[in-house]
Structure formats: structure tokens, C-alpha cells
């Protein structure tokens, strides 16, 4: 990667342009009244098409993606993004559809929703799905709205609490708060699983439900799920499944069969759609039969004649959570992936992702601290180096140092300092699309770095050595925020 230090604004030359527009063949439009016209100048770049192409090509070359190399970012499921999906998403008979077009003119698009709803329901054991949420956290919020709506429709207004394990993704408590629910934390046991005895006293008629990630953020299967489900259902609460960690269960275990009532999926994790540098994603929410009426509007329905229609609102629905029916382009990509995968390859998604994670864990656990032994699912968490090299006058190497040093070897870093249960957490998720050679190369580098740490941690403190920039000053960035181009 080469450092390139320009902003598009800095390439601007007054009078230059990069657009191609038709001549006006309608005659001049009446001018807006002065009081409604923009009175201030508009500073946007004035650049040619070539300027734009070179600038963004240069920027792209300072970026690392899944196509660049191994991306073992825990809880993010950075699997390969098939190229066919991109081709399908830009298909002209889908890309130019207006969302308000009447149903009779978009039967193909509505069929995509219908078929995806059936497909995801079969994979997860849920009864129905909404595709309207645009991201995982948006799905969580939608799922909690459905939860509240369900209790409300039963005339039960006392349920104001949601239980969240201490190992949960930060979005869980944040989504609950946005949804007007009070968050009650339940602690984990030494073995990383929810403490069922600690859960029991929290359960009463004020509990709307529990949010669980299974396998949890340590990559461990919540083995007491049956008892937890029975306890929570016993007091009238619902079980929410955070689908961020669905990958190891694909084709093997269905959340619906474990008693979950509501769940979200991340199509950009489990179903191979690209992350796009932070989005667009898609966070469909699935529900069990008794919650179907609470799904948000609008919704695709099928008439007796087999024709599809869009139900724009319904009395029992939790409301409307996005402008239309979510990120259609992302849904198309995931559908193409699922068609390629087929039922015969489906179980291998889960099993191979679990195989990869356990293999990497076993190969490294003598040099990185493994706080909890045993089989993991698609990811696992180390708690720093076994030997961080600290001694008199020498500061040991940290997880941050490891992350930065990995960049020197052409690997993306794992997720670090999460979950919060450990001080030096290193969360590794290899996914099923990485070859043994790639995993072995990563393992070799991880071992080399562990040896460096033990010998001379300063190599790690100084890392990265080979990237376009090195350890940006984040403190100054937050203390004196510069959030736009200085000449604006």
C-alpha cells in the first residue's frame, strides 16, 4: 500500500467539470422566488472525470478488503463475497425499479422477497421474516419493537425489562435502550456461559424477554439453552436471538428449534454480501408463528391467485422501520448466494467455519492464553500473549500491538478488546471460505509475532512498520475534532 495524501477538494480547479448532461429542450423553468433561493456559495470539488477516477483508485489502494487477504475479524464473518452476486444486483430489470411502483409491475422483485422469506425461515426454523431493517443493529431494534408490540397486544404493559448477558454485543443494550426498555445484565460463568442461577432471580412479570447470542461472543454454545428458554417462557418473556453469530449453525442447528421467538440475521455476514466499508448491510428479522402479525410494514403477501402484493400497513404491525422494504440490492445478492449454495452445501457452511476456528485455536493456544478450553464454534477468544515479554523496565506487548504487527504481514487484525470479559481479548473468526494454506500462513505469523513479543516487545510497540500510516493519534482526533475539509 502506498500513501496518497490528497482530498478530492484539493484537486479542484474552478471551471473544470466531470459530468455529461443533456441540453435543455423544455424551455427555461420559472425562477424560484429570491427568498427561497440558496444565497450562499456551494463549495464542491470542480474536477474532471479522469481526476475522479485516479483519486478514488488511489484511495482504494490504501484499503484492505476480503479480496486483498485474510480478514479474521471476530463476530464480523468476513467470508468471501462471490462476484456473481454483484452481477445479479446490478441486473437492469431490478436496479431501475421504483419502490412505489404498483405491485403488478414488480412481480419479479416481490417474488424475491417471498422466496427469501421462505428460504430463511427454513434455515432458521422461524415462521416469517421482514427484510425492512437495513443492518444488524437495525434488526435488533426492530425485533425488540416486535417484542414490545406483542406484549402490548396481549394487554401486558408491565414488561419493561430486557435481560442481556455481560458477554453481549454492545448493540444489544443500546438497541434495548432506544426501544425504551430497561436493560438488566446477567453475568457469565467461568466457563463463559450464562449463569442460569443468576438468571433465575431476575425473572418475573416485568421481563419482556432476553437477548442471546448463541454461540455467544466467546464462540461458545450456550449449552443450557433449553433451561433458559423454559425459564424465560415460564414467566411470559420472549427469547431474542442475535444472529451475528449464526454462521456456525447454518445447516446444523435452527434457532427456532431452540425456542427462540424473534431473531435477526446479518445478510452481510452469514449470507456473503459485501460489507462495503461499513454498509449497506441487511438485517432481516424472523419471528415464530405467534408473532407474525407484529412484523413491521410494508410486507409482501401472496394472493389466492398466486400474485404478489404489498400490504402497506396493518393494525397489529409493530410499525414501519425504514423507508420501504429494506436494502433490496443486498437481499438480491444473498438470494444469489443461497441459490448457488443449495441444500447440499448448506450444512458445510456451519461445519467448515467451526472446523477452521477450532483448527486455528488448537494451533495457537500454547502461545496465546486460551481462557476457556474446549470445542468452540465459528470463533474463539484469546486473552493476550502467554509471554508478552514484560520484564524489568520493559513493557510487555499488548493485544493492540499484536493487531498492529499483523498488518505488517498482510493480515487484517482480529476483533480486539471485545468481549469485555477479558482485558486483552483477541477474537478470531476465520470463516469457511479460507483455505488450510491461508490458515497455516496466519498461524505461522501469529506464532512468529508471539516469539517476537517474548524476545523483544519493542518490535510490536513500533508496529506497524509497512503501512501507509502508522498509529494515528486518536486522542487528538477526539479532543479537537476536525470533521470536514479545512477550507469549507
Amino acid at each position, binding site marked *: 500500500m502506498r500513501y496518497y495524501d490528497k482530498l478530492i477538494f484539493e484537486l479542484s480547479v474552478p471551471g473544470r467539470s466531470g459530468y455529461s448532461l443533456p441540453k435543455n429542450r423544455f424551455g427555461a423553468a420559472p425562477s424560484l422566488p429570491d427568498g427561497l433561493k440558496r444565497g450562499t456559495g456551494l463549495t464542491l470539488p470542480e474536477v474532471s*472525470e479522469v481526476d475522479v477516477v485516479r483519486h478514488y483508485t488511489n484511495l482504494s489502494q490504501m484499503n484492505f478488503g476480503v479480496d486483498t487477504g485474510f480478514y479474521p475479524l471476530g463476530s464480523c464473518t468476513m467470508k468471501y463475497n462471490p462476484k456473481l452476486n454483484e452481477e445479479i444486483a446490478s441486473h437492469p430489470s431490478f436496479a431501475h425499479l*421504483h419502490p412505489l411502483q404498483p405491485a403488478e409491475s414488480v412481480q419479479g422483485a416481490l417474488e424475491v422477497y417471498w422466496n427469501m422469506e421462505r428460504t430463511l425461515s427454513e434455515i432458521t426454523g422461524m415462521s416469517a421474516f421482514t427484510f425492512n431493517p437495513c443492518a444488524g443493529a437495525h434488526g435488533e431494534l426492530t425485533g425488540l*419493537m416486535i417484542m414490545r408490540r406483542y406484549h402490548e397486544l396481549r394487554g401486558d404493559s408491565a414488561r419493561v425489562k430486557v435481560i442481556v448477558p455481560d458477554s453481549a454485543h454492545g448493540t444489544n443494550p443500546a438497541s434495548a435502550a432506544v426501544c425504551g426498555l430497561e436493560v438488566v445484565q446477567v453475568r457469565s460463568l467461568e466457563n463463559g456461559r450464562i449463569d442460569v442461577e443468576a438468571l433465575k432471580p431476575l425473572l418475573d412479570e416485568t421481563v419482556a424477554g432476553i437477548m442471546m447470542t448463541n454461540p455467544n461472543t466467546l464462540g461458545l454454545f450456550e449449552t443450557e439453552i433449553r433451561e433458559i428458554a423454559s425459564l424465560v417462557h415460564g414467566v411470559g418473556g420472549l427469547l431474542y436471538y442475535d444472529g451475528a453469530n449464526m454462521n456456525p449453525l447454518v445447516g446444523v442447528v435452527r434457532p427456532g428449534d431452540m425456542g427462540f421467538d424473534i431473531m435477526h440475521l446479518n445478510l452481510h455476514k452469514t449470507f456473503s454480501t459485501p460489507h462495503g466499508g461499513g454498509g449497506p448491510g441487511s438485517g432481516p428479522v424472523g419471528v415464530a408463528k405467534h408473532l407474525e402479525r407484529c412484523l413491521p410494514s410494508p410486507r409482501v403477501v401472496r394472493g389466492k391467485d398466486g400474485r404478489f402484493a404489498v400490504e402497506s400497513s396493518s393494525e397489529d404491525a409493530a410499525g414501519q422501520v425504514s423507508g420501504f422494504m429494506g436494502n433490496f440490492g*443486498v437481499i438480491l445478492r444473498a438470494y444469489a448466494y443461497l441459490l448457488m*449454495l443449495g441444500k447440499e452445501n448448506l450444512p458445510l457452511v456451519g461445519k467448515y467455519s467451526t472446523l477452521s476456528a477450532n483448527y486455528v485455536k488448537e494451533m495457537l493456544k500454547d502461545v496465546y492464553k486460551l481462557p476457556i478450553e474446549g470445542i468452540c464454534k465459528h470463533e474463539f477468544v484469546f486473552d493476550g500473549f502467554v509471554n508478552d515479554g514484560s520484564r524489568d523496565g520493559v513493557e510487555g506487548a499488548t493485544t493492540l500491538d499484536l493487531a498492529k504487527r499483523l498488518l505488517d504481514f498482510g493480515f487484517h487484525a482480529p476483533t480486539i478488546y471485545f468481549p469485555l470479559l477479558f482485558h486483552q481479548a483477541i477474537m478470531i473468526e476465520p470463516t469457511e471460505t479460507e483455505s488450510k494454506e491461508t490458515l497455516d500462513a496466519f498461524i505461522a505469523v501469529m506464532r512468529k509475532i508471539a516469539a517476537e513479543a517474548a524476545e523483544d516487545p519493542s518490535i510490536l510497540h513500533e508496529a506497524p512498520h509497512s503501512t501507509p500510516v502508522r498509529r494515528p493519534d486518536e486522542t487528538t482526533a477526539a479532543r479537537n475534532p476536525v470533521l470536514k475539509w479545512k477550507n469549507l
Partner: protein
Amino acid sequence: MGQFAYFPHTEGEVKSMLERIGVSDLDALYADVPGEYLRKGEYDLPEALSEGEVRSFFDSLGKKNVPLKVFVGGGCYDHYSPAVIPALLSRSEFLTAYTPYQPEISQGTLRYIFEFQSMICALTGLDAANASLYDGPTSAAEAMMLSVASTRKKNRVLISDGLLPQVVKVVETYAKYHGVELGRVPVMGGQTCINCLRAELSKDDVAGVIVPSINRFGIVEDHSGFAELIHAEKGLLIEYCDPSALAVVKSPSEWDADVAVGDGQSLGIPLSFGGPYVGFMAVRSEYLRKMPGRIVGETVDRDGKRCYVLTLQAREQHIRREKATSNICSNESLMALYVTMYLSLMGPEGLRKVNELSSSGAHYLHDALLRTGKFEEVFPGKPFLKEFVLKPLTDPENLRKKLLEAGFFAAAPTEEGYVSFCVTENRTREEVDALLAAIEEILR
């Protein structure tokens, strides 16, 4: 088992990995899962297709959609999209990257987000923008929550009836669950009513007011006096904008707004049946730390080089959990890149021309429709750009249906029984004339 293109493991490799782990087979990796939960038997799903078969599948599915000439807006606009954008957007370094957690190898993403934020600030005239939000309607809902969080002990937010229906529905949904009381400000004579606003503000409980810069009838609203009234009550003025039109209409900062939100789709993003689009939010600096979503800031690295990082993360869920300003932990990054490249290519002049061309086409259609004698003006003399409504002197449902048969998506019905039209620079004179001919034929 046959080999599948996205799974690189060979049978031999699987075996050796299992041996290293110390288990007999793949199923043994699930020994910790209670047996009753392990799926037995096949899934009721189709068998794997080849690439060619998937292509044909979507070809035939695509044929079930009817290609139409789009003459409707309603918050989603069929604007020109330069060829450069999809070509660069498909670069895998942008496409297949995650959120830029490791700034050393994410300067591409971070830099274009910084450019995006700068451009949103330029368009709105406000001090700071975030890295983008899901879409326009959810950005309005986030602004509602921001206003409540920013004002003390106030829990009521007013929304104009001139906002798009999807914006109103999403704001209502978030308000209900977030515990925000909503009030409505009616539209009178095609414009959010200032006297009604004044009456609603008298109770000293309003945290924010959301008004459309251009309302759902296509009318450019006059917000003179709005900020004064709202600020006197210590509330926030939130402008919901079409960012494309901000090149020519008064900007949120010129209306003295505190927050601007909207959907970036009108900046060249394909219609794509409703998504992915990109929401945006810009604020005055005093509200910066209450802003939801990712924010990118400029700094220097160890060697003093200018660079960019995710910043002000102390607001966010992974640190603050239930006390975060929002639950949002992503952005619509790739769509923000779309918008950034679009605005770079268009520049200030291109964006003005887009508005001029669209407005010319819309006024041409508007005047020609009135001349047919089958439509009446609803808000005579009210200024509009690319979108307008008329009252049809005929059955609107029949008109819409017949137009559909003729290959046009036009005359979308509003809840009042008006019909809505939109013309962008993508519509040629021939297409507009063909629409007019079709309408005259239908109404004959």
C-alpha cells in the same frame, strides 16, 4: 461430497485438520449441542445451481417486472448516474472492506467518508456531519431522538404533515417505542403552517420540530420565522432535505436550522426498488456529541502524516452500551462513496444544472397537463422544482392503471386524491411528450 467453489477445503485437508483438533469427524464439533437441536434430514430447499443457472433464474424473474418510464418521485428520484461510479464502486478494496477499525489499512474508506462529511456540510451549511445513516426516514427518526436528548426534560417533537408518508411512519414508530410524544403541524395552502406551529409551541415542552425543505407536494417551503419561534422555546429546528435540491434552494443553515437530515438517493443512486440508499445528518457544533453513527476525523500519525480515524467513539454502543446516543454501529459506507463521487463529478455547476433541467421538464409537463383541461391546480403559484401534484378531474386509479399499461409509472395517487408527477433530467422531451400523448388518449 462434491467440491463447491466457495469452500476451498479438500477431503484430505478436512481430515488432517480434524486430527489436529483431536476429533473424529465434523459432527463431533457439535458434541456440545444437545442432540435434540441438531437438524436431522434435509432442508426443504432447492439443490445448488451453477452460475449459468443462477443467471437464467434471475433473467426469468426479471422478466416478471414490467419496465416503465418513471415519472414519480415521492422521495426516490430517477437522476442521472455517471458511468464512473459503478466502475469505481466495484473495486474490491472498497467493496469487501469492513468498517475501518484498523486505520492503517483503511485510509481509503476513512478519507472518502471525511470527504462525504465535508460535502454534506457544504450542502447543508452546518458544522458537522456523520458518516451516513440507513436512509432518509430513519435519519429523521434519529434527529427526533437527538432533539429529545439535547433538550432538558422535553419529550415532545412536532412533525410537519408535509413530510413524506414514509418519513412520518418511521418517525411515528421510533417515537412510540422511544417514548417520545409526537405532535403534528398541518399544511395550509401547500406549506407547513407557521400559525399552527406557533400554537403548538406555546406549551414549553417541544424538543424539536421536523419540517420538509421541499414537501411531499413538491413545493419549496418558506421557513421564514420558524427558527425564531422554535429557538425561543429552546427547541431544535430539523430540516428534512432533498440534498440534490440544496444546490438551488435555501440551505438548512440559511433557515437557521440546528439539524439537517435526508436521503442521499437523489444524488445519483439507482432506484433499486427502495434500497440501498443512504441517510445523512448534519448538525450545529453544539449537538456534535449527541449525533448518532460513525464519525471520521482528521489527525496525524506517528510520523506526522495527515490521516483519518473513526472518532468521538465515546458516544457509541461498543463503549457506552445502553447509554449510547444511538444503537447504530455501521453506516451506508459504499453508498456514501457513491454520493461523494457523484458530487465530485457534478460539482456545484452540474448539480445546479440537474435542478434546472429537472425543473424545466417538470414545469413543461405541469403546464401541458393543465392545458388538457382534465387537471386542476391544487396550490396555484406555489414554487416547485421537479415534482408537483394536480387534482385530476377523472378517476385517478383508472388513469394510473392505463398509464401503467402504456409503459409509464406516473400520476401516483396521494392520500388527498391528488396525483403526483416528477420529471428529472433523465426524462427526454420525447418521453414527456409520449406521456402527454398517452394521457390525452386515456382521457379522451
